[in-house]
């Protein structure tokens, strides 16, 4: 069960934060196992349980059995409410073509018994960890499908988000490529983390997937705020087995290639030049 006791003790806190499951039940299990081995007292999922991968229903028992605290992504909102599209926020026709394929598959294969669960997930989560005001959201605190790319977010902008939403630590996903930004003290400090996605690789040529392991230390002085250390951990999982599942389900070979190579083949047009240059397409 998750440790939600907050920051009243002096103990060092350790949490796992993951996002973008995209039906990848094998990666989900591998990430939670890794987090457990690292001593994480709780795991949080920032949404988008469906899309891309096979067998949508397989992620729900894992999340429920292992007590993962989940918030609602755009995909969860769309599937839960049986909306016509995923509302991922793509603008390119090719990106939208593959998004429609994924969405139609996930919608058709998600059992109706999980729809209320998806509908009722909260859109954001707030915690106090040793005095740190923690805010978890899907895309950004202001828009569920906003892409926050590392190369496209000025420090000043991230500082504005922290100020407007009264947070010291902001955790998001949605874009699928992880990053950590410690904001300079002269701007007021704070930390923003995009935890990436565990559903598919991060366009870096590795088949593993990323999540964030947070270690929160108590404040040094009474009344002060704790500090957080963020480790982006890459976890290998049985991607060959997932590929076999996907082929058996007749999912696009372009998706399979991404799992097999670690490079994105779709959703390319949303990538800024810097993030895209890490890949081969």
């Amino acid at each position, binding site marked *: 069960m998750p440790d939600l006791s907050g920051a009243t003790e002096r103990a060092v806190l350790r949490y796992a934060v993951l996002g973008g499951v995209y039906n990848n039940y094998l990666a989900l299990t591998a990430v939670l196992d890794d987090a457990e081995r690292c001593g994480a007292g709780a795991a949080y999922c920032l949404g988008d349980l469906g899309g891309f991968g096979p067998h949508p229903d397989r992620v729900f028992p894992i999340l429920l059995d292992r007590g993962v605290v989940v918030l609602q992504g755009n995909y969860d909102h769309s599937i839960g409410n049986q909306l016509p599209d995923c509302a991922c926020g793509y603008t390119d026709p090719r990106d939208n073509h593959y998004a429609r394929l994924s969405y139609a598959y996930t919608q058709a294969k998600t059992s109706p018994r999980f729809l209320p669960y998806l509908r009722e997930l909260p859109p*954001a*989560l707030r915690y106090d960890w040793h005095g740190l005001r923690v805010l978890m959201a899907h895309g950004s605190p202001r828009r569920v499908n906003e892409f926050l790319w590392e190369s496209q977010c000025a420090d*000043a*902008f991230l500082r504005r988000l922290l100020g407007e939403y009264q947070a010291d630590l902001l955790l998001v996903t949605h874009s699928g490529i992880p990053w950590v930004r410690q904001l300079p003290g002269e701007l007021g400090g704070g930390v923003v983390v995009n935890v990436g996605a565990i559903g598919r690789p991060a366009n870096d040529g590795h088949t593993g997937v990323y999540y964030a392991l947070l270690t929160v230390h108590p404040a040094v002085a009474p009344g002060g705020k704790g500090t957080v250390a963020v480790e982006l951990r890459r976890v290998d999982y049985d991607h060959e087995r997932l590929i076999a599942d996907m082929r058996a389900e007749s999912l696009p070979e372009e998706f399979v290639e991404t799992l097999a190579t670690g490079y994105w083949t779709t959703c390319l047009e949303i990538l800024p*030049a810097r993030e895209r240059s890490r890949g081969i397409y």
Partner: protein
Amino acid sequence: MTTSHDPSRGALSAATGATAPRQEETAAPTHLPAAALHAPSPPPEPSPRPRRSLRLLPPVLPEAAAVELPFLGLDTLWLQLTGTRCNIACRHCFITCGPKEDRVPMMTRARVEQLLLEARTLGVKEFYFTGGEPMLHPDFFALIERTLQEGPVNILTNGTLIDAAAAARFAELGRATRYSLELRVSLDGMTAEQNDPVRGRGTFAAIVAGLRELGQVGLSPVITVVEHQPGMADAAARQEFLAFARQLGLGRPRVKFLPLLRLGREPRRSHPYAADALVEGPLEDGVAATLQCSSARLATQQDVLTCPLLLDAPEARLGSTLTAAARPIRLRWSACHTCVTEGLSCRT
């Protein structure tokens, strides 16, 4: 644990009181010899010059009748770096830029610096350099380097001035920063026959040469294509454009199609906006947040305006500082109709 969220998505209301858009236009289409494309940069012009009243872009709706759009924060700062000065004079240019167009002056380094510092305090996310042709600015690369210290930079260029040295400099600046340096190059066709009638004689060859130079240094700009002929932006045309870009040596080509704006010189080439091209409220849910004018401003040497399309609209001037311009605006122009109904976003 609490839940908190949400963009501002208020229902906005407006009435209409339409009058036909008025376009007073004097400039003739200009075609430049290729040699003129590489003319030396003119010096900056820090002192304001009087605007020619003939360029004025009147609103089509009275203020009280137009939809009010809230200002959600300064995400994007556009810098009209070279004012209206450009080395070419496209027939569809929506702000009538050209070699002799100096009604909006170049920006000085001091003005840019003041805006960068103000933008930082307002929490800016990203910057766009535009003109005119921004590469005509004598301090162009120094200004990019300085701005990249603050955040990501997008450069809108016609591509005709990109030689090997410029391409190498772009690549170097891109490698040296943690932020994104994006180039957007305008090209309005895959042949000179399609492109040159709107962008000027010789421009296709010059733009393609610039794109090849970028490809040589491993950069892949976004190619922006104005749909000046029907069908240019359909799915097949998009794939053809991407294939064309790969042939030029662009490894990861991107293409962005833009709708025509019936402003500036374009009404003479085709026709002005229809009299009923108006934004009638209330806006649908979520639209306000997608409109660039809810989170962007355009700065010139003297003014801060609601958006890059309204450079010649006196009523779109919101003050001389970003802070003064951080307030709601009203969707009074036919150009607003393009963004609301066609989903135009000037963002990359």
